[in-house]
């Protein structure tokens, strides 16, 4: 029996270790090796040192991609986190009827994913026939029903942020609602006894109670935001007005798969790793600090 329990964990981990090693760690190392080589095809390459990284540093298009991606990630967080928290607070109110039903409705969009959301918003925002433009045409006849959300840089940005918010707000709300429901109710009673105002209760009881979950949502939102690709790719059908569709991953795809420049694509991947690590460190520190 003792030898059995000695061997068992390795057998249970074997499938994970084999696939994780062969299809995660190996390609990861391989990507690093590819980032210092120039490719003329998948099998024809020569070493070029750090040339790809140096090229990225001075390529204005890459900088546009980095700034676009960072600004989208910041906008998503500014929109998603407050909305998720607001909805969770509403749903957490005492004696809300139909809480499960509201939660279900708000959670449904997450099933769609980035590609379907891109298609859905393409149709929803279509000039003339789309629901949004019809509503705008009716409410604001001066503006009319022919706003083109794909060719105006500001409208395109609004559309992409709105689509991501539609996908993710309900998701964040479910996490926050669970955290709100686990806040010790005696703390609220104590605050009430002390004569705390609703704002003081929110600031000193509710907010500390949900802070770890808020930090987690900011972390996941930052990481996800920096990997933005499918939604603008489908919605804008190209780089979009003033290159608003050019994200870091879009840049990687164009380099690697449209032009076969796998070396530069691999270098972009590693720059993305650095960007995400830099953005994640303060969040991870905050999460650890609040535990």
């Amino acid at each position, binding site marked *: 029996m003792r030898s059995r329990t000695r061997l*068992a*964990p*390795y057998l*249970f*981990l074997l*499938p*994970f270790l084999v*696939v994780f090693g062969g299809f*995660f760690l190996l*390609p*990861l190392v*391989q990507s690093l*090796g*590819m980032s210092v080589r120039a490719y003329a095809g*998948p099998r024809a390459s020569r070493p070029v040192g750090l040339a790809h990284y140096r090229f990225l540093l001075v390529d204005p298009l890459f900088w546009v991609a980095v700034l676009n991606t960072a600004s989208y990630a910041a906008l998503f967080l500014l929109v998603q986190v407050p909305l998720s928290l607001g909805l969770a607070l509403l*749903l*957490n*109110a005492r*004696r*809300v009827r139909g*809480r499960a039903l*509201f939660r279900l*409705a*708000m959670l*449904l969009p*997450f*099933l*769609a994913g980035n*590609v*379907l959301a891109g*298609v859905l918003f393409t*149709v929803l925002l*279509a000039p003339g*026939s789309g629901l949004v433009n019809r509503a705008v045409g009716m409410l604001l006849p001066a503006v009319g029903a022919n706003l083109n959300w794909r060719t105006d840089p500001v409208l395109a940005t609004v559309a992409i942020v709105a689509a991501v918010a*539609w996908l993710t*707000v309900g998701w964040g709300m*479910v*996490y926050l609602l*669970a*955290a*709100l*429901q686990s*806040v010790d109710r005696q703390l*609220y*009673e104590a605050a009430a006894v002390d004569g705390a105002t609703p704002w003081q209760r929110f600031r000193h009881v*509710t907010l500390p109670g949900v802070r770890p*979950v808020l930090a*987690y949502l900011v972390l996941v939102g930052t*990481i996800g935001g*920096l990997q933005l*690709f499918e939604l603008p790719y489908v919605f804008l*059908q190209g780089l979009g007005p003033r290159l608003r569709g050019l994200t870091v*991953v879009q840049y990687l795809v164009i380099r*690697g798969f449209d032009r076969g420049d796998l*070396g530069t694509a*691999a270098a972009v*991947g590693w720059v993305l*790793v650095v960007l*995400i*690590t830099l953005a994640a460190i303060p969040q991870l520190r905050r999460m650890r600090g609040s535990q």
Partner: protein
Amino acid sequence: MPRPPASPPPPSYRSAAAKAALYAGLVASAAVALLPLGWMLWAAFTEPDAPGLTLAHFADLFARFPVGRWLANSLFVSAAQTVLVVLTSTLGGFALATYAFPGRRLVVGLMLGTLFLPSQVLLPGLYAVVLRLGWADTFAAVVVPGSVSAFGTFLFMQAMAKVPAELVQAARVDGCSELRVWWEVALPVVRPMVGAYTLLAFVGSWNSYLWPAAVLLDESNYTLAVGLASMVGLPGYEGRSGVLMAATLVAIAPPAGLFLWLQRDFVAGLAAGAVKG
């Protein structure tokens, strides 16, 4: 509706006005969440400027695109990937949570160190590996790399750490094999998490685009997400909202069905994860 036991008594919405505002906020938010899906249904089943319901968009969709094939491909790929990733994650998580063995710290360290790596950094290297295996344009190239997950294994390692050691020991004394301990003792304890993770894995696989689009080349091998993305830019489909929305409806139905089946587990599983922080 039964109130959860730990439900706090936050702000009291006692006045009628506050109550009306609360419900107005909730109804408006639910409407915003559902409106795009409602518009999808409406556009899929109606002809612009013509009264009544129609199935013409679906007929058009299935006649012009291999959507049946894409649907079958997606169902196969996502089902296979989900079953495999739930199996490998619960087995691996069980091993890491239940046993003390040399190498355990190394495995946990590797998993944690790679948890937040963007999958896109793998693309060039994974592409090279898959070409070397001769897997270009095969489902194996999509299913196998997604059949394990550091996140999933870590998730079940944490969840199964709560399985009481006495329970495991008692099962062994009763003559259970280690595999039966996993199946009959550990898995039932984390059942809601299994439901939540199954849905998460299926939806993630169903909607994944970049890697399948990179390795599935022939149109008849596309998954639904890849096929659907390829439809949007086709000339002439710009204004064909009905066909696009019919395709979107076909694509969203399977994950929606699974969601309705597993939603109780899903919310409970997410909540368990959230409270831990």
